[in-house]
């Protein structure tokens, strides 16, 4: 937290609200930061389609109150080029650092002495950005998986929300425990292929176990280009399951 160069993104109904929120969160005054307007926001019509304004605050490292050369960059486009940090990846190093720090803190409070390994996942064909993977390692961390991965799902949900709140935008991140999801994904893919062969050979539908949306998606993606079968999800809520239908 003591690097003065860290930038943070805040949102508010209007630009001034976003700046005020950021200043109070960072404990700084208006002349101690450089403001970049990422998104001016819009009110929408009757509140429909309204978007919050988003600003990035960069603390000015020097203690003297001289304004910085670029005092503010205002633009209507919420573009990535505004980032002063290297634009190498799709996520700035900041996001990774914040994610790691937040995850470590949460794990400590959950009573685990664990390491967090951060990596970038492959971008799925229908996603705009590649998700960040936070993989947790350490003694006893399998307690964080839970029955059918439900504790892990809760951990991911809370981490996403906390990140979203902190950065003022949705973050595409995946929380894993000792590669559990990766192993599970491999197993699901091979299950999908086996069941698809079975359905194709017998000409009868194959029903899989009820699964989470994330897991059903893995099955659908795996069989998307299969020549002999189609996949659909049937059922409601926790009973929803993938059905493999032979093409006729």
């Amino acid at each position: 937290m003591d690097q003065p160069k860290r930038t943070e993104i805040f949102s508010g109904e209007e630009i001034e609200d976003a700046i005020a929120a950021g200043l109070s969160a960072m404990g700084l005054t208006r002349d101690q930061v450089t403001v970049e307007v990422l998104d001016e926001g819009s009110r929408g019509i009757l509140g429909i389609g309204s978007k919050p304004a988003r600003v990035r605050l960069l603390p000015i490292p020097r203690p003297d109150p001289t304004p910085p050369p670029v005092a503010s960059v205002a633009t209507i486009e919420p573009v990535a080029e505004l980032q002063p940090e290297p634009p190498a990846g799709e996520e700035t190093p900041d996001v990774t650092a914040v994610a790691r720090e937040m995850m470590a803190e949460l794990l400590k409070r959950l009573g685990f002495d664990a390491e967090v390994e951060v990596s970038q996942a492959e971008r799925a064909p229908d996603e705009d950005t590649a998700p960040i993977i936070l993989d947790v390692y350490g003694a006893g961390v399998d307690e964080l998986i839970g029955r059918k991965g439900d504790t892990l799902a809760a951990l991911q949900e809370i981490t996403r929300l906390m990140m979203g709140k902190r950065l003022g935008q949705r973050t595409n991140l995946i929380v894993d425990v000792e590669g559990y999801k990766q192993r599970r994904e491999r197993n699901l893919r091979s299950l999908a292929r086996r069941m698809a062969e079975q359905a194709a050979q017998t000409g009868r539908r194959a029903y899989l176990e009820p699964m989470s949306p994330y897991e059903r998606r893995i099955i659908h993606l795996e069989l998307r280009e299969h020549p002999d079968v189609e996949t659909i999800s049937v059922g409601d809520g926790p009973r929803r399951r993938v059905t493999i239908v032979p093409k006729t």
Partner: protein
Amino acid sequence: MSEMKDLVEYIAKSLADEPALVNVSEIEGENSVILELRVGPEDMGRIIGRGGRTANAMRTLVRVLAAKQGKRVTLEIV
């Protein structure tokens, strides 16, 4: 401060627009703990989440700590 109370408070404060209004009280029985989470009126929806999603995720996480202590925990948002 108990770890369970501390955890709930940490999460709720991280998610709230008004962290100053977040308050958790703890009622401890022999084998069970009841946590009462209070947040500002503006933050109620955010803390509960769509269909209670966020509240349930917090319950699941606080249960990890409860299990370590061999206790049952109930988290109520009041």
